[in-house]
């Protein structure tokens, strides 16, 4: 006969009618013979009964109006929750750790980059460092830091063509599964960039800085440069994500918040397919 330990293990399945066949019969026989386990099953029934008796709460009358008002507010003023990592996400995180281990083994972290000073690229890196360091914890807070340190303004997508001489690729065609949350014109040390904040599945935030020049080096001379989707791409690792710069459409693009190398290769390839024929 089934023992108490095994019965306890299967008791919820049995109680919820999720146990079939011989196991169900064995649990049933044990409960008929064991007063202690039968009492446990009875307690399950009592719990269900208590929950069933709870009143059914109704949402407050003004809730829809509140939602509409919040929907009409600018996106960044709303809190952005971080969903619980899904199993798929956990697998990606494991891949990220493997990729990060390689980069970290080479000493390719932002900590090392902070030591660089002087020329324009390093100044850009220094001023971006607080933003990049905060990004993994909270992209929204990182954005506040960025705007506190750099001149920047939020743009209406419809006004973009009047404000910049190119159509930003991330706005025109955000990566698959991502939606454009907001667009800013930010004056970094290297140039004035169009910053596009995209929100994706599982709450991932990807930010693209599209520089006006092809030779912007947001990370100074640090990181590792490798071929991603056939493009020389400068990559730096930070806690939990990658940031990378590559050339596209006669300009350079910096992506922040990239989950792993697999996603980076997909992004570089994706933007390469979006660029104008004359630039490729």
């Amino acid at each position, binding site marked *: 006969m089934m023992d108490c330990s095994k019965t306890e293990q299967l008791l919820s*399945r049995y109680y919820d009618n999720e146990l079939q066949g011989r196991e169900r019969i064995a649990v049933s026989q044990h409960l008929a013979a064991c007063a202690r386990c039968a009492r446990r099953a009875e307690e399950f029934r009592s719990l269900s009964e*208590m929950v069933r008796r709870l009143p059914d709460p109704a*949402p407050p009358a003004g809730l*829809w109006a509140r*939602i509409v008002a919040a929907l009409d507010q600018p996106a960044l003023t709303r809190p952005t*929750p971080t969903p619980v990592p899904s199993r798929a996400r956990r697998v990606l995180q494991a891949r990220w750790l493997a990729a990060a281990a390689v980069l970290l083994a080479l000493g390719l972290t932002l900590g090392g980059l902070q030591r660089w000073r002087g020329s324009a690229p390093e100044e850009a890196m220094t001023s971006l460092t607080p933003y990049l360091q905060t990004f993994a914890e909270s992209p929204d807070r990182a954005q506040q830091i960025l705007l506190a340190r750099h001149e920047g303004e939020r743009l209406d997508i419809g006004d973009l063509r009047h404000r910049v001489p190119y159509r930003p690729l991330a706005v025109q065609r955000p990566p698959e599964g991502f939606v454009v949350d907001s667009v800013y014109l930010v004056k970094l040390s290297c140039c004035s960039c169009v910053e596009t904040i995209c929100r*994706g599945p599982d709450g991932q935030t990807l930010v693209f800085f599209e520089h006006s020049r092809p030779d912007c080096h947001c990370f100074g001379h640090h990181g590792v440069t490798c071929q991603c989707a056939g493009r020389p791409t400068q990559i730096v690792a930070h806690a939990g994500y990658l940031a990378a710069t590559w050339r596209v459409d006669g300009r350079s693009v910096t992506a922040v918040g990239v989950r792993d190398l697999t996603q980076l290769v997909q992004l570089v390839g994706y933007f390469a397919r979006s660029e104008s024929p004359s630039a490729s």
Partner: protein
Amino acid sequence: MTAPTDQLVAACQQQDRQAQQKLYEEFSGRLYRLAVRMVGNEDADDVTQQIFLQVFRTIGQFGGRSRFETWLYRLAVNECLQHLRRRKQKALQPLLGEPASHQHDAEARTEQRELIEAALGRLEPDLRAVFVLREVEQMNYREIAEALDLSDGTVASRLNRARKQLRDILLDMGWVP
């Protein structure tokens, strides 16, 4: 569960405000109830609001690979768990209905309703989510597994732990089964 029409979801993906309102009317009762059981009465309004904001902001990513309700409940439970984490970090508010002194106060809690609400508030959030989806939303194990991205086995073991923990909490509060 009543499935919303594909057209309604499609219209919401186009940010159609009328369709959004219909979707709200269809699901607000269930999602509000879920929020009350997960985070308590005080925060349920805010959390339900946040759930719907997230729904409307991300519904474009719903590709129909799972049932819409599954996607919706996954998002809603994640919002509740996220809220509980933030609340724990801030340590500003007690859990739902939890008294300052919870030991041996069954006399003050003659209502079983208050007992179970307080006990639910003391249940570990991950266990609470599984328990609420099963006992309140009447989902089967497969539906819970899909909504929470867990295996059936994990759902079963969490339900076992949830019931045992809940029973222990209630007994500690003076519950007589």
